[in-house]
């Protein structure tokens, strides 16, 4: 709960710090930063009640560019630091910014636990499928065959799927967006903040230096309509330039498939209606990736459950209901004896 001061309405500029932004020119991070500045202004949050916590990597420089509170921590450990902060100060709005290496490689353990505990933190994973700050090594989301200084003959390790991982961790809010889609990102930020519990957003982010255009097959304007599925709760999963394609469930294969309306007797009624509370379908959607499928964007899964810090605070409050502890009394409880 933020105390809303009757202060002036803040603008996106009010959320930008005075520090010079030092990402490479053309980096997708700029767009995300801008979207965040605007989004926070639109939401009417107070900068003093907002904290950005990050790990290490290009994305993790994010807090320095926010005129809020910020903590740039150590590699992979942002979830743990954010958890401690949230336990100490549950009333703060905490955003965590991380990357594919930070969150899924060195910090995989902590990401798992912050999600399964359901700590009320908004987690933004900038996924560019590469280590940028260390000059271009393959990351845990790099695809098989990715050539890099550490994988000159192509990567041979099987990539992690961020949203599938999050769902496996029992995250209760999972969404995906693209760095340059500011409006959609803004909506996701707003949904994430409103969601009580851990909110996980994978942001597809282009690294212009070490992995440029790796997502072009679905982010390019020319292919966007055919290769992006923007899901909305209660609406059919329809996409395509002609809005004639959709996702349906194949009961024979127990899998999702792309169906074209008007072909082979497919009608709109065959196309699935997105239900963000359906965990089974969320699993299938999270696993759907290009080029076989369109990239699923929007809120893939949202089914709130009690958050961790609230449960901890409730226990603390219950213990304190009988009044504050008396240390002198505590130390004199049990067997004592007096010496005159």
């Amino acid at each position, binding site marked *: 709960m933020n105390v809303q001061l009757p202060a002036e309405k803040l603008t996106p500029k009010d959320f930008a710090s005075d520090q010079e932004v030092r990402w490479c020119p053309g980096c997708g991070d700029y767009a995300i930063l801008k979207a965040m500045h605007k989004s926070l202004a639109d939401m009417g949050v107070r900068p003093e009640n907002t904290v950005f916590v990050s790990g290490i990597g290009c994305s993790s420089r994010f807090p320095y560019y926010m005129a809020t509170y910020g903590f740039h*921590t150590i590699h992979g450990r942002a979830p743990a630091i954010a958890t401690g902060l949230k336990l100490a100060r549950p009333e703060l709005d905490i955003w965590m910014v991380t990357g594919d290496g930070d969150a899924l490689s060195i910090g995989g353990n902590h990401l798992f636990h912050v999600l399964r505990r359901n700590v009320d933190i908004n987690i933004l994973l900038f996924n560019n499928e590469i280590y940028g700050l260390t000059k271009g090594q393959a990351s845990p989301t790099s695809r098989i065959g990715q050539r890099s200084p550490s994988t000159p003959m192509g990567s041979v390790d099987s990539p992690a799927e961020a949203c599938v991982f999050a769902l496996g961790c029992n995250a209760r809010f999972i969404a995906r967006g693209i760095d340059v889609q500011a409006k959609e990102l803004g909506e996701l930020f707003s949904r994430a903040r409103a969601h009580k519990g851990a909110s996980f957003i994978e942001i597809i982010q282009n690294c212009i230096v070490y992995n440029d255009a790796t997502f072009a097959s679905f982010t390019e304007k020319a292919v966007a309509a055919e290769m992006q599925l923007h899901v909305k709760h209660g609406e059919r999963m329809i996409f395509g330039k002609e809005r004639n394609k959709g996702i349906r469930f194949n009961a024979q294969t127990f899998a999702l498939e792309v169906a074209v309306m008007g072909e082979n007797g497919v009608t709109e009624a065959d196309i699935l209606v997105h239900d963000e509370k359906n965990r089974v379908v969320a699993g299938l959607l999270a696993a759907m990736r290009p080029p076989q499928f369109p990239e699923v964007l929007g809120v893939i899964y949202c089914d709130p459950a009690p958050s961790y810090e609230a449960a901890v605070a409730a226990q603390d409050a219950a213990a*304190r209901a009988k009044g504050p502890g008396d240390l002198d009394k505590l*130390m004199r409880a049990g067997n004592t004896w007096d010496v005159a």
Partner: protein
Amino acid sequence: MNLQAHDTGVATPHTSDLDSIVVRFAGDSGDGVQLLGSQFSQETALAGNSLATFPDFPAEIRAPTGTTYGVSAFQINFGSRLIKTAGDQPDVLVALNPAALMVNYKGLRKGGLVILDAGAFKDKDIKRAGFAVDPRLDGTLKEFRVMEIDISTQALEVAKPFGVSQKEALRTKNLWVLGLVSWMYDRELKSTMEYVSRKFGAEDPIGKANLAALNAGHAYGETHELSGDVAPVSMPSVKVEAGTYRLVSGAESLAWGLVAGAQLAGLEMVLASYPITPSSPILHILARLKQFGVTTFQAEDEIAACCAAIGASYGGKLGVTASSGPGIALKTEAIGLAIGTELPLVVVNTQRGGPSTGLPTKTEQSDLFLAVFGRNADAPMPVIASRAPGDCFDVAIEAVRLATKYMTPVMLLSDGYIANAAEPWRIPSMANYAPFNVQFRTDPEGFHPFLRDPKTLARVWAKPGTPGLMHRIGGIERDYNSGNISYDAANHQKMTDTRAAKINNIADDIPEQTVEVGETQGKLAVVGWGSTFGPINRAVFNMRAKGLDVSHIHIRHIWPLPRNLGTLLKSYEKVLVAEMNNGQMLQLLRGQYLVDAKGLLKVSGQPIKIAEVEDAIRSQLASA
């Protein structure tokens, strides 16, 4: 009962004046030896004796029965004089099976008393313990007096009528022994009876069986008219400072000290820890103290625990993390972050034998280097060490004071011996402690996060939620004048110097080094730190009584060291450092002061003995 009084000429009289006695209980790890020992300690404390205990148990929770590696032991030294150690050599050994005898009989004082459970000495038990023949028959125990009682049968018979299983009935034998030993030393059974009733409930058959066994053991002593120095001994209470006393373990007093420190600082506390032996009791104790403004968090690993504590400190609470060597090693990068961002943090290290997993349940002092130097880069932080269970309370308060006053992580060194051992403790009154309330920065005028107090060099503590003070901190080097990221060469030099100066200046804020026993100059100073306090203190006291020129210096503030320590050490002809490691304080003192100190170094998992220190003193003073 068969009391063999071997007349071998080696039987020395019992402790000369009976001003103290050492009893060691030993049995299988499932025999309840630790409970037996701690209840006997409780009774002994209530009887007004001074005491020190040494729980000595295996890492295995339930090792196969009858094996030597499954032997659990509990040693208590108690007396009418001030007791400083758990005792070099037991006067009495209670062995509940052959394996317990095998592991412990060699440590017994010649002429000492062995009480055996004859019911546990079947052929296969004897073989399993590694005795080729029955040690009761082949002269193995000829240097001791041996009392055989079929404790198993005695306990079984008395417990059975309560309708408990054979297994439960047999498990009452620890209470039976407690009854017998309580009779031998004239201890009141009341506190144990209350404990059993509380644990099982008044109507529980197991509770009733245990109480019956306790009374039966006591009655056995009375009715069998045990003679000689097995006959009851009454020990007068020790003369100590007036006050209310209790038994306290190091883990308890440390946890309470952290709570006290947080209260004095005016802060709530977040303890984030990961289970590890022998540190876990601190987490367990604090998890039950939520009403004191304590929040506990069992993190997913050691790194997360330290990070969560740092997150809490960033949020304006007192972040604390507690662990043992291997866990502290994992935390080192995060501790560096706390040093760089200059956030308060208390890191408790209950040391154990190493390296790696080492000896999880055995004590050692081998993390001194890790505490003082164990981080990447120039990353100084204060280190302080507790010397005894009760002392942990004040040391914990001091750790909180330094952490909050100087905006720095502080390493508090305890060890497995201190954590598990119990001693009578004069309960402090919080009214006698001066608060050191933290002042958070709230004024936006001229604010940046690395504004420093000109005297302490501590930076301001501004917590999220404060209007107008929004700022960013992080692991990247910070500009001295703004706190913003800076890669500037001169700035890094200045910040490194400032971080070092801030910690070094703490030497002005801690007591000067004093001498515990003896003079501020002379032939020999024995220097110790941590839990070697007891044996060194007693040994120096004993040797001075014999006219030797030796003094005891005990170092509490490990880093920074007290201002006058170098000068003090140089005023002795010789310096001997006694510690349970391979020479870490020794190296530190040699490096800091260029003194030609020598070491009495021991890493056997057992506390240093008084006699070992005495021998070292004699040998130092005998050589030129």
